[in-house]
Each structure stands twice: as structure tokens, then as C-alpha cells.
């Protein structure tokens, strides 16, 4: 029930509200960084965990979904959990990547190990959920955990090239080795297991090596399932990051020249200038676009007119996938992995008796 509060009490309440749900960017530092809304910290606030209250306050808004990029908002969740999702997206969602390279012939000038390193970093379009992890110590690889690719290419001279030409594209055949030259070699019964699947690198135009006539590369590659924690080549996202929603408030009305200067201090579109009764008045139009360069703090006259803050529980996620799995699938998988971790410990708690 809203209890009528005196003016001083209202101001105090606003202060604690600000401390609870805004991270304030001051001139020389950031204040109120840590979450403090734990039970017992604030008298009069209900802070104990309540699933129903969480569900009412929580929402997800998908802002932009293009090929490979997903931008969505999560409102009503805490930093610890949002960060857990980000960490899992980067390091614990599994993918398939080249792990072992069997070099039969490499007479190019790219050394074996450099070539192997480059091949490992190529993203392979194979759904990792169809495969198992390879058992420890298993050198051979079975059809349920390994994908085999072959790269066999030889560079030769073009007999029809013009005498004076110096363009390598004309003089030589196959002098650039692209990822499109990698072919899938099915192991065992993989043709039956995956009848319509076409396993190949995500991008066809990744340059692997350069050759000259007489040089050839003949390698066989084994791809296994792994996670980013083990090697960054297994990371399924180009990057996954989040930022907090900016919150800009004008503490006093700003007019005329000061308004113009203020508009220039922020990213375009954040502050708009309206014409009210002939005077130019500044207004915060869209704080979401701002990148917080803190340019306002460099101007003496402007720095006390605004309060820069971020909303503590509103996260703007941006997930960019390498192409192996679409970004919405990646986010779902990340959430499932966190659930799996919790389940693992719950099972252990139940099975092992605590002394």
C-alpha cells in the first residue's frame, strides 16, 4: 500500500531507489556498481527470492534479428546471471572444428604446423548436437564423434597463358587454396546417419595457403566436438557481449547555446532540441543510442546539468554467430547448459551422502 511520505522521506526513498537500481557514472568513477538488493540490506524492501515476482518483472525483447546477428534485451535479471550466459556463449557452447591434421604431402611454403593451425580455425558447418565428444585417449575416432575432411590440391602452370603476363591468376591453376577445396570424406556409416547433410566449412572463400607450380598439399583432417574453454577455435560466436541500458537525466532545464553544446556531447540521436515558445530546449530523446563517451564532463558549464547512469537490470545483448548455428539457437543452448550445470550438482547432492 503506498504510504504517504513526507518530502524528506520521499527524497530519501528516491536516493535508495537510485542506489538500488542505477549504476551512476560520475566524473571520476562509477558508483553503486555492486548489486545490494539482498534480504536484510534495506528495511522496508522485500528482497528475498520470489520466483513469481521475478517472472512478473522479467521480460525479453528481441530487437534485431539479421543473419548471424541477434540483438535482444533482457530486463529484470541480475548481472551475475547475465554474465553467466555471456561466459557460456563464449566458452562452453560446443562446436565442431578441425583438431588433428594428417599431413601426407605438403610441399608448399606454409609450414605444417602453421597450416594445421589455420585449418583448425576454419568454422565447420556441422550441427554439434548430432555428435558426441571423443573419449579421452581415443586416437582413431569413430563415426559418432569425428568428421573427416580432405584437402588435396596441386598447383600447375597454365600452358595457354600469354608470354608477358605476370598475373598469377592467369599464369597458374589452383595457386590459391580456399576453404571450398576441403571435401567431406564420410567415415563408416555416416552416409546413412546423415543422408542429406552436407558438411563443409561455413565460408567458401577463406584463403588457406598460396601455391606455385609443383607445390601440392595433401592432408586429411579430423574434426571433433569441443568447447571454447579448451581452444578458442571451438567458440561458436564471433563475439557475444552485453551492455546496460543508459539512463540520462537532465537535472535542470537546458536552453539555447547550452542545449546545442549538450547535443554535441552525446551520440547523435540521444538529445533532441525542441522549440518551445521560441527558445531551444534540450530533451533526452533516446538514451539507448548513447555510447557514454563522457564528453559532458569535459565542459565545466555542462557537467552539473546531467546525470549519467545505467539501469542495473536491463541488459542489451548482442550475439554474433560465426555461422555454425544461428544466434537464437546459441542463446537457447547456453541457457540449457547453465541448467545442466545446476542439475549436475543437484544430482551429486542427492547421490552422495553429506557427512
Amino acid at each position, binding site marked *: 500500500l503506498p504510504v504517504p511520505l513526507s518530502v524528506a522521506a520521499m527524497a530519501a526513498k528516491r536516493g535508495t531507489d537510485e542506489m538500488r537500481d542505477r549504476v551512476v557514472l560520475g566524473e571520476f568513477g562509477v558508483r553503486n556498481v555492486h548489486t545490494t538488493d539482498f534480504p536484510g540490506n534495506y528495511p522496508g524492501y522485500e528482497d528475498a527470492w520470489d520466483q513469481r515476482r521475478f517472472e512478473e518483472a522479467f521480460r525479453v525483447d528481441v530487437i534485431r534479428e539479421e543473419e548471424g546477428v541477434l540483438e535482444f534485451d533482457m530486463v529484470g535479471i541480475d548481472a551475475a546471471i547475465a554474465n553467466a550466459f555471456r*561466459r557460456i556463449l563464449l566458452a562452453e557452447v560446443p562446436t565442431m572444428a578441425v583438431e588433428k591434421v594428417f599431413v601426407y604431402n605438403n610441399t608448399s611454403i606454409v609450414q605444417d604446423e602453421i597450416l594445421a593451425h589455420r585449418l583448425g580455425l576454419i568454422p565447420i558447418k556441422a550441427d554439434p548436437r548430432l555428435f558426441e565428444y571423443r573419449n579421452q585417449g581415443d586416437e582413431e575416432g569413430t563415426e559418432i564423434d569425428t568428421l573427416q575432411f580432405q584437402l588435396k590440391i596441386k598447383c600447375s602452370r597454365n600452358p595457354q597463358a600469354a608470354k608477358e603476363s605476370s598475373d598469377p591468376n592467369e599464369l597458374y591453376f589452383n595457386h590459391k587454396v580456399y576453404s571450398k577445396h576441403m571435401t567431406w570424406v564420410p567415415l563408416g556409416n555416416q552416409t546413412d546417419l546423415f543422408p542429406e547433410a552436407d558438411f563443409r566449412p561455413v565460408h567458401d572463400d577463406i584463403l588457406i595457403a598460396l601455391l606455385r607450380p609443383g607445390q601440392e598439399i595433401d592432408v586429411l583432417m579430423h574434426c571433433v566436438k569441443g568447447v571454447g574453454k579448451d581452444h578458442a577455435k571451438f567458440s561458436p560466436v564471433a563475439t557475444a557481449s552485453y551492455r546496460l541500458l543508459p539512463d540520462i537525466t537532465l537535472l535542470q532545464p537546458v536552453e539555447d547555446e547550452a542545449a546545442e553544446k549538450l547535443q554535441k556531447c552525446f551520440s547523435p540521436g540521444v538529445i533532441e532540441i525542441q522549440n518551445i515558445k521560441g527558445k531551444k530546449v534540450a530533451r533526452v530523446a533516446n538514451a539507448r543510442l548513447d555510447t557514454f563517451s563522457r564528453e559532458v564532463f569535459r565542459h565545466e558549464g555542462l557537467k552539473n546539468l546531467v546525470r549519467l547512469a545505467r539501469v542495473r537490470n536491463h541488459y542489451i545483448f548482442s550475439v554474433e554467430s560465426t555461422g555454425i548455428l544461428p544466434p537464437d539457437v546459441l542463446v537457447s543452448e547456453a541457457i540449457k547448459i547453465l541448467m545442466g550445470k545446476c542439475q549436475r550438482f543437484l544430482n551429486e547432492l542427492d547421490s552422495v551422502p553429506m557427512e
Partner: protein
Amino acid sequence: VQADGTDGNCVTFVLHDEDHTLGNSLRYMVMKNPDVEFCGYCITHPSESKINFRIQTRGTLPAVEPFRKGLTDLMGVCQHVLNTFEVRLLLKSSAAF
């Protein structure tokens, strides 16, 4: 998982193969429990992937209870986030048509 402590109220769990990902989110969920007097986690050494997760409860509640409740609550949060996210995706893709 290994537990070790003087009495049932103050227990340090050693969680293997875990890091800040589960540590911080679990700490947040356990701190939201009003019965918990102290909850914290630390990574013993950055080369080993092992965390010490300590829970101290008010009164005589065994410390395993808030740990279990924290894990279940965290699972509930993830489930709800997953459901909400998938519903929003479906709405967005059907609205596009």
C-alpha cells in the same frame, strides 16, 4: 563436490570443474535467501578449475539446504528465461510474416 566444516551450519563446498560462470550466479541466488548469513565463493588458484563455495546460515538450518534451494532456484530462473526467450522469438518471427 566435497563438503567440509565444523558444524552443519557453516559449510564450504568444493566444486570441481567450475568457475565464475556458475559460482557468481549461484552466489547471487543463495544470497537472496533470507536464512543465509554469509555466502561467498573464491577460486583457489587460477590454474585449477575449482571453486570454494561457502555458506553460513542463521540459526540451525543445515547449510546444504540453501545450497540445494539456490541450485533449484537458478534452474527455475533459467527455465523461465528460456521459455520467455523462445516465446518472444516465435512472436517476432510470426509477426514478420
